[in-house]
């Protein structure tokens, strides 16, 4: 049942992206290839990205979500981020750097058996809050951490 719902959701976002691309007249081959949430990645503000990706901006900060990031990142091109959550029914984990030109950096869809844990490295243009958004049981749980960046890693 749960699997069905996930598939449905996935299908819905995919066709949404396709429809948007088609209507804009630029049916890029990559939009066809994967269910890559283009609109969400191209959104320029935190709320837009959330809306495009999760369909809601209704988030709540939660102790069940933990984000691990450096206080000061000397090099904005490589900022290690680890997100851990103890929430149940985790569907996805996204990492959003609020002040980046396109805030949504990455999104991890967890399949069967996957634990609420991801770790990766992101680029940050400037000092900003990094928000981990965990979608669990239809809710959006967040944890925020400010990372100070000395040298930006976007553009140049």
């Amino acid at each position, binding site marked *: 049942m749960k699997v069905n719902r996930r598939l449905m959701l996935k299908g819905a976002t995919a066709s949404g992206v396709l429809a948007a691309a088609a209507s804009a007249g630029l049916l890029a081959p990559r939009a066809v290839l994967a269910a890559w949430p283009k609109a969400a990645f191209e959104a320029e503000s935190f709320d837009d990205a959330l809306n495009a990706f999760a369909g809601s901006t209704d988030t709540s900060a939660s102790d069940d979500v933990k984000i691990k990031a450096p206080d000061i990142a000397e090099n904005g091109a*490589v900022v290690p981020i*680890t997100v851990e959550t103890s929430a149940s029914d985790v569907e996805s984990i996204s990492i959003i750097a609020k002040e980046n030109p396109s805030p949504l950096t*990455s999104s991890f869809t967890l399949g069967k058996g996957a634990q609420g844990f991801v770790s990766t490295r992101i*680029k940050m243009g400037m000092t900003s809050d990094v928000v981990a958004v965990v979608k669990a049981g239809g809710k959006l749980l967040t944890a925020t951490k400010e990372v100070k960046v000395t040298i930006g890693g976007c553009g140049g």
Partner: protein
Amino acid sequence: MASSIKMRAKASGDTVTVKALMKHPMETGQRKNSKTGELIPAHFINEVTAEHNGETVMTAYWSGAVSKNPYLSFKFKGGAKGDMLKISWTDNQGKSDSIEGKIR
């Protein structure tokens, strides 16, 4: 040719910790060539999938905001030593690569 992915999957109990390093320029499309002033076209991995025994355990969607030569780590339950794990990526220019390895 050597694969562009390095992967290590380790089982402790029934939880498997996967670490992977990929070799990729991850261009955002916002950087300029310092000599000519032309924009360097975007070139980044946008999808990474991990399959355990043919079942997808994790799909990652990325933008150009993931660092060059990306690192990825995640955990999943239900794997055992000797199981096969496959990691594959696709980038925005349609290139792809994959690697398959045993869980240790």
